[in-house]
């Protein structure tokens, strides 16, 4: 079986379109960040979160009125995975889960079970947030060093641009989905873990494409830079699609069957892996071309037009 035979897709000619696409997504994400401020999980803010399951149907208003009678105001109540499972978040610490449980037990004809409780002191929350920033930053630095060893400067820069693009893109998607209410996503430890894994994983596609670029540059001496990129991306396309496909399969399964606890993680990874693949094809190589054209002021476009005309004649 083979999805792609020898492909000959022109990935570089429409590069500006892709750049505009990426930049606009990130820009929309930024705008969303202002309109709907990013929500941090209690891992990072401190506070308490109690997940409960009811035996019968109930809505958030009933829950809210039950717990506010017990003196817990300003609770944030949202659905937690399955039907009749809710997550109640409050800023207080202490014995909140006992208060909440007692209050909810007063609801007639509906048995309540505490699924989980997380209580994080503000100090620990602050530390975890700091550690998360540090971890993302460090992993990008680590990738930078690794790529520095593997590639010449421009290519390394291209890979890093793609990587940073991935991180921002994923965060933008989270903000947009959360803002539009499509999915309840908040920035917490497992989202950060997902982003870090994406950072480690998505660099691969770029590395593999650039590896092929290096190889082809030797075997096709004097090849036009744009043709070189097109050839290399096409040659590795089957591999790129197939490996991403298997990972995407597992992530879709995880998202569908993995239960409420893993939802944020699997979703973030899924978006990240897709974006990572996209960026290694459309962003990383095109950055190198952009760099050559704009910074080094090399005229690639006229040569490229000639190449295309030559190809058309054949």
């Amino acid at each position, binding site marked *: 079986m083979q999805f792609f035979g020898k492909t000959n897709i022109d990935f570089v000619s429409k590069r500006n379109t892709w750049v505009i696409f990426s930049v606009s997504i990130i820009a929309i994400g930024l705008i969303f960040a202002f309109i709907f401020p990013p929500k941090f999980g209690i891992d990072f803010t401190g506070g308490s979160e109690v997940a409960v399951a009811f035996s019968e149907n109930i809505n958030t208003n009933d829950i809210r009125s039950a717990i506010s009678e017990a003196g817990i105001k300003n609770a944030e109540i949202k659905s937690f995975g399955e039907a009749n499972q809710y997550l109640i978040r409050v800023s207080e610490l202490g014995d909140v889960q*006992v208060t909440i449980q007692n209050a909810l037990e007063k609801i007639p004809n509906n048995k309540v079970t505490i699924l989980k409780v997380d209580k994080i002191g503000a100090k620990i929350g602050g530390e975890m947030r700091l550690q998360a920033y540090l971890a993302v930053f460090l992993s990008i630095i680590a990738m930078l060093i690794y790529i520095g060893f593997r590639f010449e400067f421009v290519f390394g820069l291209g890979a890093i641009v793609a990587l940073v693009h991935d991180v921002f893109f994923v965060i933008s998607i989270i903000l947009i989905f959360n803002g539009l209410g499509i999915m309840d996503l908040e920035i917490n430890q497992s989202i950060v873990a997902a982003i870090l894994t994406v950072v480690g*994983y998505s660099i691969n596609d770029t590395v593999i494409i650039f590896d092929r670029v290096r190889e082809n540059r030797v075997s096709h001496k004097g090849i036009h830079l744009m043709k070189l990129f097109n050839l290399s991306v096409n040659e590795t396309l089957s591999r790129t699609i197939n*490996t991403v496909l*298997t990972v995407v399969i597992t992530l879709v399964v995880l998202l569908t069957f993995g239960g409420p606890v*893993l939802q944020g993680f699997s979703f973030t990874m899924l978006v990240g892996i897709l974006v990572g693949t996209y960026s290694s094809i459309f962003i990383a190589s095109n950055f190198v071309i952009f760099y050559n054209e704009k910074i080094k002021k090399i005229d690639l476009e006229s040569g490229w037009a000639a190449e295309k005309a030559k190809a058309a004649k054949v």
Partner: protein
Amino acid sequence: MKKVLGKIILVAVTIIAALAMLYPTYKAYNLENIQKDFVRRAKAAKTSADSLAIMESFKKQYGESLQSAKNSQLKLGLDLRGGMYVTLEIDVARLIEETASKEQIDDIFEAVMEKTKEQAKNTEEDVIDMFLKNFDKIARPKGKSLISYFDFGNIRDLSDEKIVEKLRKDQDEAIDQALEVLRQRIDKYGVAEPNIQKQGSARIIMELPGVSNVGEMRNLLQTTARLEFKLVKNNKQIVEYFNRIDKFLANKSARLGSVTETTADTTIAAETAMTEETKADTTAAADTTAMASADTTKKADTTDPYAGLPEKEAQEKYLADHPFTRLFTTYFFPPQKNAQPQPVYYASSQFPEGEYMFKVLEDSIPKFNEIMNRPEIKAMMPADLSIAFEANPDKRYEEQGIRVFDFHSLKSEAELTGDVITDAMATYDPTNNLPMVTMAMNSDGSERWSKITGANLQKRIAVVLDERVYSAPTVQSKITGGNSQITGMANAEEAHLLEIVLKAGALKAPVQIIEERIVGPSLGEDSIRNGFTAAIIAAIAVVLFMFFYYGNGGLVADFAVVLNISLLFGVLASLGGTLTLPGIAGIILTLGMAVDANVLIYERIREELARGRSMKSAIDDGFNKALSAILDSNITTFITGLILYYFGSGTIQGFALTLMVGIIGTLFTAIVVSRAIIEIIMSRGATHFGFGQKKVVSNN
């Protein structure tokens, strides 16, 4: 063929290794199911004694193999098995405040403390460092030095450096003390497999599986430990009480006409083990607290009801008549000076006045407590006495691998509480260089202490922390100045522990819960089910995809991936790692990523074949040329895994761990194992191997 043999062995060894590492998990799972069955029966039993007997029979039959299987089993994280995760922090600022001399504290010092507390709330920095910085900034310009506020009577030539050193030592000791107290409490509460460890210089993290009564547990963790001095009353009165319990239980079982008590064999075994050890222990004989070699002195007793019976029968009858006292061993100290303690048998009801000593095997403690907690037995207890176990097992037996605990009968009302203690220090006795602990008290305490010691010369006073006895020294003389010395510690470690315990009175560094996570059992079960379902579906999907796309090559890759996942579980189990829900996610992700290596190789092989290369050279080239790309892709993911492991907490670390182990497994199985398999197949003369390539190579 020889070349291939090596490869076959390699593949076989890998499979066997994976299975061997997984076997304990399988065995533990089976044994735990048997255990559940026993627990069900124990719960259905009519009396608490019966249920205990059922559990004891399980322990006897399967206990050891379950324990050893559990040690190398893949453990489930708290998020899967349910339980409580807590991070506790010592309030170091409060410790500094309490250590300062109350009379000297002024506005300047308070300003320093206020600033320090404010900062401590928000940063991770060491609190003592912060305090010193603030002190330099606020107090020093006003001409103050640390000496102005701290006064440690027992330190000569006090300097600022020495004060800082002392504060740091206090902090260390405060955390050790909290650790000790918490360990004992958790142990007493009966949490199975708790994990308690120190984190940094001021934190303790605890994992308490299966704890459901959270409110109670929080109280247990946050109440300050209570240090008391109680008079030891290991006297005739308590021995008579034990004797009455025996008679009561024996009568009751006689009336019922059946033996409801535990089958005796476990306890006999225990008793002989103990006495044999005593016989063997010749060095201990010189020690004042050593037990006499067990002899058959009971025969000498004139009122012996067992006289004339053959030894075995006598022993059996004795055990049947003494359902309670057979659980432990009683010794009597004859009044003569330096006399050896004599074992006491409850054959007669006549007991001499004097000092007794009680030792019990750890395994018998649950039974002992069960009997002592029965309401009818409690009602018989002398009103002013209470029973307390020693906190740690007897060192002499522990060296021989037996855990024996002393227990004491104490006067219920404490003579003195620990808050009068101002300092304690483990040191060495200058006369004989043996470890000892010195203890200082404030003036009020000293006064009362002198009265107490004066009235109880040659009697024992127990140091009791949280109802556990840490030491029960004999009062040698009336202590008037408040400075006491406690000797008789087996080693420096024991002395250090006693120092820490005594300081429970002096050090007031309360612990606070700063992080608490509870997973209810139902969510844990759901998570296991969800994770398992997802893993199975993902595995099937990946396996099918690989087969359809890469044909036979895909099957080899599938085999490599399954092997990889088995190795991953096995290595996690033998590394003592825990499986968390994010860990399962990591495994599922590994499923998807592990085939990446195979995809790289096979795509390369297909390319080589398309160029018209022979099958064999295409395979060789495919593996060789794909290697650098495989390494690249795995190294980068491994690096982020490492960072995640270092910065992540708890369950996230579980994810990072499975990710990293999975990557190593991927490299091994994809590069080494699947190549070996393909070469084994090819060596049998095949000229073709299906990688899903087009049958006819088109040359354009």
